[in-house]
């Protein structure tokens, strides 16, 4: 059973702080994704990674960066948090062996004040 875990369920940060969101998967999936989920806007892809140290911009990468030093871990970094980054952040992983089904983490609700 695939498990995708995220470091925090709830996080409150101040404007301008550097924020790290971590995601870990235990099924050796090559692909990992970061989305933000907002009411009325659905899931929007921030970044994805198809291999260690590789990353690709998604649809809304501005204000974010990512790091993938190990296959199982994909980190999302908010260099200087702003109030418009208050959102639910979802991590997902997938692999060709599972026909690219995306397995999601429980999400991190980030509030920037």
């Amino acid at each position, binding site marked *: 059973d695939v498990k995708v875990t995220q470091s925090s369920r709830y996080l409150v940060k101040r404007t301008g702080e550097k924020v790290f969101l971590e995601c870990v998967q235990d099924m050796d999936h090559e692909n990992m994704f970061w989305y933000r989920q907002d009411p009325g806007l*659905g899931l929007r892809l921030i970044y994805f990674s198809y291999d260690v140290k590789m990353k690709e911009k998604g649809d809304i990468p501005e204000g974010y960066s990512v790091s993938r030093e190990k296959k199982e871990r994909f980190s999302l970094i908010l260099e200087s948090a702003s109030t418009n980054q208050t959102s639910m952040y979802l991590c*997902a992983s997938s692999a060709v062996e599972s026909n690219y*089904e995306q397995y*999601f983490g429980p999400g991190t609700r980030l509030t920037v004040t």
Partner: protein
Amino acid sequence: AQRVTQPEKLLSVFKGAPVELKCNYSYSGSPELFWYVQYSRQRLQLLLRHISRESIKGFTADLNKGETSFHLKKPFAQEEDSAMYYCALRGSHSGGYQKVTFGTGTKLQVIP
């Protein structure tokens, strides 16, 4: 560019009534389409994909390439179907890697 459109934000139906959640897509190649579901306080999970051509929890979806649609249907709604439903498309990124685009979601509310 790839795009997924779900025109309804909220769909309310009575228990036992038929359900159709609409999804239209835009993609120049051969897409792979999915429906994901998120029940209250649960994580997002796959419901079904077009290549499987199977029925899950009574739901079916047929890919219509002519109309570029992948509508989700169920003949008789159940209260436990109340959830948020997302249509998703997997296509090729500019670098040849896989990219998944989600729609904005439709909240299905089944009224007892």
